């Protein structure tokens, strides 16, 4: 991100936090995860720099390039690291050495994190015991069922595929029914069908009120898991909230729009004259327009269509994907 981009985002921060759904707007009264001016450094290396955010129930995706500080955030949230400055609170409580709080948090670490010599049931049972559950087998079998591995419950983990191991890790994180789930690259190794099933599981848990923070670097996965994102770049929070709203705030960059219509050539001739239009491409049944003034464009399209007598079929953004937002924030 260049300096201009950082300044722009900084200036937008207050408005952004107030406006974004799934964050302050929806959950301002009771955020489940809060970082308040948190910094973390290791010797001279600054891993996180003055990061603040608050998220509530639902799925939120933590995005960022390698080394952006994603894992540091997750470690801070699970009490694995102590912040160098600032405060971290989960469910309203400080995290470090807060054992009662750990009952309410589930963690899926990025690393391998399974004992190959145990069966899946034994592994999840161990997690249940570590969380103090008096009926560990019962709880383990429920969690195993949740991730769809009932048939493999008595198989040793060293016989599992990578995707199955991921699901085993998710099962151990769910065994004590936590209110907050911290997932570090949870879909690594899962095949497409398993990914869909796991994403559906996360959505189901979120609907039941869980707060799920998922770290990933796969943008397509992040987009499927929900709209709410936290984007970290170089240890700083670059953006947060609904990525479509973040795209709206990127008003220093032209928007690319596709208009599916009749008579695209005539319509293009009118739209190219509009102030703010920087590029128009004509296709057989549509035109693609790049505009710096979306508001003027929205008014101009129906007016131009009326003028040329063309019927409009669709007006859709081409660069509202998470990828375009991410590229804008990290470049």
């Amino acid at each position: 991100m260049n300096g201009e981009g950082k300044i722009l985002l900084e200036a937008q921060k207050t408005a952004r936090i107030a406006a974004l759904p799934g964050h302050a707007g929806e959950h301002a009264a009771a955020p489940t995860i809060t970082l308040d001016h948190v910094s973390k450094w290791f010797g001279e290396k600054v891993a996180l720099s003055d990061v603040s955010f608050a998220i509530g129930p639902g799925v939120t995706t933590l995005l960022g390039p390698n080394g952006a500080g994603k894992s540091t955030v997750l470690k801070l949230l699970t009490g694995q690291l102590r912040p160098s400055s600032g405060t971290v609170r989960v469910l309203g409580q400080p995290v470090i050495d807060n054992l009662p709080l750990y009952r309410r948090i589930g963690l899926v670490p990025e690393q391998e994190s399974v004992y190959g010599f145990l069966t899946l049931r034994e592994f999840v049972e161990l997690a249940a015991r570590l969380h103090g559950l008096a009926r560990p087998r019962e709880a383990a079998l429920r969690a195993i069922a949740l991730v769809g591995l009932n048939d493999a419950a008595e198989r040793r983990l060293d016989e599992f595929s990578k995707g199955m191991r991921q699901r085993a890790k998710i099962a151990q994180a769910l065994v004590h029914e936590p209110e907050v789930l911290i997932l570090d690259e949870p879909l690594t190794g899962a095949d497409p069908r398993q990914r869909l099933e796991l994403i559906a599981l996360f959505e189901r848990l979120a609907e039941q009120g869980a707060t799920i923070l998922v770290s990933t670097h796969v943008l397509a996965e992040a987009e499927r898991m929900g709209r709410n994102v936290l984007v970290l770049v170089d240890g700083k929070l670059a953006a947060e909230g609904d990525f479509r709203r973040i795209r709206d705030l990127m008003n220093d960059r032209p928007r690319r729009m596709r208009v599916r219509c009749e008579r695209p050539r005539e319509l293009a001739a009118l739209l190219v004259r509009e102030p703010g239009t920087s590029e128009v491409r004509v296709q057989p049944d549509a035109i693609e327009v790049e505009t710096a003034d979306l508001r003027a464009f929205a008014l101009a399209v129906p007016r131009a269509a009326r003028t040329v007598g063309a019927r409009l079929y669709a007006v859709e953004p081409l660069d509202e994907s998470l990828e375009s937002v991410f590229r804008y924030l990290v470049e």
Partner: protein
Amino acid sequence: MNDGGAVIGRGEGRILDRGYQHYEGRRYGVPWAMRAVILGTVQRSLGFRRPTSAKIFPLFLLLGCFAPALIVLGVRLLVGGQAFARRSVPVDQVVPLWRYFDLIATLVMVLTALAASEALCPDRRQRVLPLYYASLLTPRLYLAARVAGVVLVLCVATILPPLLLWTGNVLLADDPWSYLAGHIGQFWAILGAGFALALFDAAIGCAVAGFSERKAYAAGALLGGVIALTTVAETTWRSVHADWSRYALLFAPLRVPVGVGNWLFGHTTPAAVAGAWYLAALVVVTILALAIIERAYAAVRF
């Protein structure tokens, strides 16, 4: 059709699966979680639920620790006390209890190398520490549970065999009640000496194993270090003809807990160094070893 194969009649209904139900059982606290880790350590160290190859070595070492007691008691049972009649010592002193710890000290150290490395190394190698730390355990509690598990395993080797010999001596005595009354102090000495040996070995074993991801490296480093230190200390004591040289034995890991044991039994300690010195060495080394490993685990959480 339901599970039993009966066709459900028209207008009837049946719920076969109510779907996911929340866990409603009791939830316990930290002791429950620590108990799970301690039991897991014992099981892993002794090779439970593992291939036969993992069971053989600890079983062999445990048998070695029991061997003196089993042999003496077995011969007494089969042949009677006259089997040892040609020896000039009383029959219950063929293998004196205070000597027992000297006899098994090396075997116990080898068992320590196995148990401590099995307790700590796989967790680092498999990178499962975050799962423990995200449960009801802090790094300190996790370590305490792992060390306690190793101590428990070692106690099987350090307390049960001399206790078996002592019990046999009592039961096979001409007058068991009066023998018991006269030797009850040995019971407490066995507990104290056995626990001291187990705690000392477990502390230094875990301190070494806590720095390695590989069991073989950890076990090798521990045994190599112990042999080297003990050799240097013993050589110093034997070759340097000065009064201070006997205190070199306070740096011999195989000698220190034995010295404490001898002292608890009221017997002369190795090189006639006062028992309190051995006890002090044991306490200092144990605390140092535990502090070193605690710092190491607290510094790098995962």
